[in-house]
């Protein structure tokens, strides 16, 4: 299978196999008008298999969001066909307005313009909790 290289855009590499579509939806890539490639279950020496997303447009880099969904991804920024920057987001300590608190008893359900803030409380199990009500985050 051959997917062309991109000139100006972002390649999200080393996505855990099967998480590609989740990242696609989470970043709202379905709303873009540019060429996008989602490669699923590509062979990877390091991971065995991986998903890859290539977006042929200069995207705002939502590293916290990416780190929250899949902390081991690599984000490559391509400019004029050349790799110019590489990021490894990792698990962010805090995420703001990336996921919404689903607890109907939480103040975020009623308070106007309150940011939805989640904090990493358990690194090992990748648990994030709402800073207001301590409910676990759900994608």
């Amino acid at each position, binding site marked *: 299978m051959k997917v062309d290289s991109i000139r100006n855009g972002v390649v999200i590499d080393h996505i855990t196999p099967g998480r590609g579509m989740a990242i696609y939806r989470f970043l709202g890539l379905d709303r873009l008008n540019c060429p996008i490639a989602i490669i699923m279950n590509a062979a990877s020496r390091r991971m065995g298999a991986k998903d890859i997303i290539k977006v042929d447009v200069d995207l705002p880099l939502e590293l916290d969001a990416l780190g929250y969904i899949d902390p081991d991804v690599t984000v490559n920024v391509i400019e004029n066909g050349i790799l110019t920057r590489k990021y490894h987001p990792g698990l962010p300590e805090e995420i703001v307005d990336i996921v919404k608190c689903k*607890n109907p*008893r939480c*103040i975020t359900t009623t308070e106007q313009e309150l940011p939805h803030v989640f904090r990493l*409380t*358990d690194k090992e199990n990748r648990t994030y909790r*709402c*800073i*207001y009500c301590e409910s676990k985050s759900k994608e």
Partner: protein
Amino acid sequence: MRHLIGMDDLSVADIDKLIATAEDIIASPEKYSDVCRGKKLATLFYEPSTRTRLSFEAAMMELGGGVLGFSEAQSSSAAKGESVADTAKVISCFADIMVMRHFKEGAPMVAARNASIPVINAGDGGHNHPTQTLTDLLTIKREKGRLTNMTIGLCGDLKFGRTVHSLIEAMSRYEGIRFVLIAPEELPVPDYIKHEVLEKNGIPYEETTDLEAVLPSLDVLYMTRVQRERFFNEQDYIRLKDSYILTPLKLAKAKADCTVLHPLPRVNEISVAVDKDPRACYFKQVLCGKYIRMALIKMLLESTSEEA
């Protein structure tokens, strides 16, 4: 600016200091009768409460301060749709310290992030109720003479019981504590308390549905009410409300020095006949609540004036 939103806002040293101050207030109340002269406490109670609100008001009055506020959301600007953040900014213009009870979890934290005066959480939905926990700690300290090396049984609604969650977090910081969690299968302690507080800190605990079987092992028995207001479904409430009823017959199996606590209000879960038993300490607990709140108000106001 110091606030009290959850027990993790207080170090063990803070808790010990608050308990020491409360015990000094009990011993010599006259020393403290004027320490809040000219200061005002605002009580923002969006949810009904008798004990907690009156306890705070009595505490402030005994410190020589004044009190203003509301006792239900309908009589506040919340009825007009004002946000908690805006209310906190407005109240900061009128009072020196505020105490908030709200049916939404996290509301006092929103207030604290927007207020320019200290905020005390007096209960936010089923989430936290730190001043009840401080009350419980003071009562246990006075009854047992220590906060270490004991088995604490928590019985009733352990799922929605905010006092239970806060008490587990607080007591987990002391040495030699073991918990026995007694609840119907539908109302267990939430997983996050078990995993992130008990297991993470290596605190031994046992879960059971059988109160009588574990009663002889307990140094403290903390009874709780099944709270109607936490259920979306009335049928579930009716089915579970009388899961545990402590009677003199059952209490006969407990240790001679077992301390029976309850955050009150009680419905059916402790029979009135138990009140005469010297082990029943829940009314002493109410009084401890006033003293520990006096100590807390004093500490938070002092921290503000130190910053000024």
